[in-house]
């Protein structure tokens, strides 16, 4: 592999977030470099999803700021985040179950559509040309994720592993620079996990997309990540290459516990 890891694209500084008395995140800082695969790991309830939600603008942290491509925000707006080229997938799939795979991925193109609702409804002139352009891009994603057999299948009828793939496809349709993946491998069997790993690596390799992923399957994370942040009860307890993290005593005790 000869991929070029670039400069810091996303910098999270001193983020704290609490819900009432519960401190979900306490003074978390880390950075993400361009073209890298950055993992956030930690046991259940460590604050991984909360972290992603702060970056994504779903939650507003009480303290701290986030710098994305040189612009600093104390609060990310989820629409603006998407416009800036950050896409995400969800831990508990948020797909339109009754719509086909094709249409679901097409919704990911929404931000890139220029013609207004009126022309789209009539499917005339520029709207039609635009739709062909978008369809082309969607077909490339379908080809990339190898879901051609299910193009016209309603998403609700697909097995879970494939739904996850469609979710990834929709995020890719945005042509993101940064992709946030919330437990992309949760609930999958070994084979599905391997497939998903390959797709994540391919996305990173083919499109140069920066990937931030949350996962609690250590094995998977260590294999595909360039750098790993470890959270435990809202605190950062480790940060570094997979090897560094693996040998960090604090991480070992958080994961293996003391006396299970």
């Amino acid at each position, binding site marked *: 592999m000869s*991929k070029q890891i670039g400069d810091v694209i996303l910098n999270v500084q001193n983020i704290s977030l609490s819900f009432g008395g519960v401190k979900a995140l306490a003074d978390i800082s880390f950075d993400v470099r361009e073209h890298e695969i950055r993992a956030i790991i930690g046991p259940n309830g460590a604050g991984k999803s909360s972290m992603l939600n702060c970056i994504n603008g779903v939650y507003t942290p009480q303290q701290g700021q986030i710098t994305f491509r040189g612009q600093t925000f104390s609060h990310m707006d989820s629409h603006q985040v998407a416009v800036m080229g950050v896409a995400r997938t969800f831990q508990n799939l948020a797909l339109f179950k009754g719509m086909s795979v094709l249409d679901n991925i097409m919704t990911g193109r929404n931000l890139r559509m220029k013609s207004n609702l009126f022309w789209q409804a009539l499917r005339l002139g520029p709207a039609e040309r635009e739709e062909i352009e978008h369809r*082309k891009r969607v*077909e490339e994603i379908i*080809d990339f994720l190898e879901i051609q*057999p299910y193009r016209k299948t309603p998403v609700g009828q697909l097995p879970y592993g494939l739904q996850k793939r469609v979710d990834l496809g929709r995020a890719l349709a945005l042509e993101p620079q940064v992709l946030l993946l919330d437990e992309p491998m949760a609930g999958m069997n070994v*084979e599905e996990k*391997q497939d998903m790993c390959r797709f994540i690596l*391919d996305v990173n*390799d083919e499109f140069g997309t920066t990937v931030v992923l949350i996962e609690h399957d250590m094995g998977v994370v260590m294999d595909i990540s360039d750098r790993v942040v470890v959270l435990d009860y809202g605190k950062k307890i480790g940060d570094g290459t997979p090897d560094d993290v693996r040998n960090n005593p604090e991480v070992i005790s958080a994961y293996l516990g003391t006396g299970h």
Partner: protein
Amino acid sequence: MGLIFAALSGNVTVILQFDTHMDTTFPRLLALHASQRPGDAALREKEYGIWQTLNWADLFIAVRQMAHVFARDGMQRGDHVVIIGANRPNLYASMLAVQVLGGIPVPLYQDAAATEYVFPIHNAEVRFAVVENQEQVDKLLEIHADCPSLARIYYDDPRGLRHYPPTLLSHLQQVLREGAALVAQQPEFVHTQIEKGQADDVAAMFFTSGTTGTAKGVVHTHRSLLDRAKAGADFDRLTHREEVLAYLPPAWIGQNIFSYAQWLCCGYVVNCPESAETVTIDLKEVGPTYYFAPPRVFEGLLTQVMIRMEDASAIKRRMFKYFMDIAREHGPRRMDGQSIGLWPSVLYGLGNGLVYGPLRNNLGLSRVRVAYTAGEAIGPDLFSFYRSIGINLKQLYGSTETAVFVCLQPDNQAYADTVGVPCNGVEIKVAENGEILVKSAGLLKGYYKNPEATAEVLSADGWYKTNDAGFIDSRGHLKIIDRVKDVGRIQGGVHDGAMFAPKYVENKLKFFPFIKEAVAYGDGRERVCVMLNIDFDAVGNWAERRNLPYAGYTDLAQKPEVYQLLLECVEKVNADLSADTLLAGSQISRFLVLHKELDADDGELTRTNKVRRGYIADKYAVLVEALYAGRSEQHIETAVKFEDGRTGSVSATLTLSDAKVFAPVGQAA
């Protein structure tokens, strides 16, 4: 052999024109199509959801560019070139380009493990490989240390290969670009190369799957392949208007004949599916007119229809049942061109509008003019089902060594139990031991570097020993019973000395939708015992309908209810066999249901999905022993190989069951 100049896609190109008689080669046929009908479609491939067409002129241009680069890279006349991948236009073009240079394409099965490629590559001293994608490149790189002769690998799909070192690899797209420059420098090159090629040159080599021992390279010349391709095409009056879907492995000679030899012979359109998983969708979109599938594909389609019918509304189910009964009664005779009477004709016509037509359309077979099945025996019910709904399904007989076409069924004489009449240019005789001998212009030149094996099957006076036992019946049709070496004898007991035809028994079992595979033992023994594999889809569905919970394959296979279900199947087979004086001794006295599916990756099936009886007997020796010892239970642990190459083990305690055998019908009287 005249020469004409034709303008192709703006470039002035030299195109050869050759006589159409049989002294031709594949590259000459390509040149012929490209000059006579440059704008007609040659290949189609579905990409990004759209069927993309390549016409004969474009194909010729691509082949020419590839040939230039291959020659520059050092490919010479007589070089063997390995081709690995699914049916892709670029791989087809590369086979033609290799043949232009007088090289010999050796297609290999794309789903084989890397180590299985070592033998062919060594055997044929292969220096070049053309492969489909990263998966195949990885496999070849994995064995490269064992195969140092391999000097260059060309690949079609660049995905994931960008960071691979280019020392060994070339992208076919890049080859085409470089080729374009070389064509401009030497416009006459390909033309002279094509002229050098002669009909008796070796055209291709196919490694047989080898039910026994190591694979052997079957060598065919342009003449042998094209002679058979033409005989088959004449038999069914194929034209350039046929549409074919190429979805079986190109390494199998059947696919090669249907979508390569006959494609160039007739000049029809070959369609390449989008991926292996989309074949059923693509089939509907293409609507082939000439279709080939092994029995298991037809069986799979029928199972799907039946499962979906069970979920249909009550009215539809009743309509389906009513009209299928009519089809069963009158359809086959109607298909054979016999009169069925006025009232049945009216009912059949109504059924055609309401059921058969929509069903054919749903299967993607509404335009089929000629459909073939071969490779294994097809169940009579299955066979007549397709014929009864108006699909001209027929059987044929042939093998890799005979370039497929030996016997074919004429349109109006399709019987489930025969494989048809000898086609043009074929002579057949039956040897003393019941073995079928064949003579035709399509026979193999020999096994590659294996004169002993060649001498074993090819006699000095040109007869090929098929290894199949059979006879010509009263209608002049060939009927196959089993492999000669597999036909055994029962020893001891009431049926002492009776004939035992394992495949015949296995096939009868497999005709039941619930049974996926069967392996029968009985040669040199007193009784016949079988091991069965359930069909997970069919039995799973059956269980769900009966509210029978199960945890997975192994659990379902061992359910007492499933044993009862299979017992009924076994006893029906026994009743059937007892009616046959020759084979009454082959009745099954005991059986068991295996805990895992027999798999080619575990060496239990060949790559063409035929059971390897001897290997299975060794691997499951404890089970065979337990069957004959009369035990009612046996524990077994088996090593399995997963698709990614890792190994694991499965263990289970299997139930063994007795079955009722019937007194031979003849003896009872």
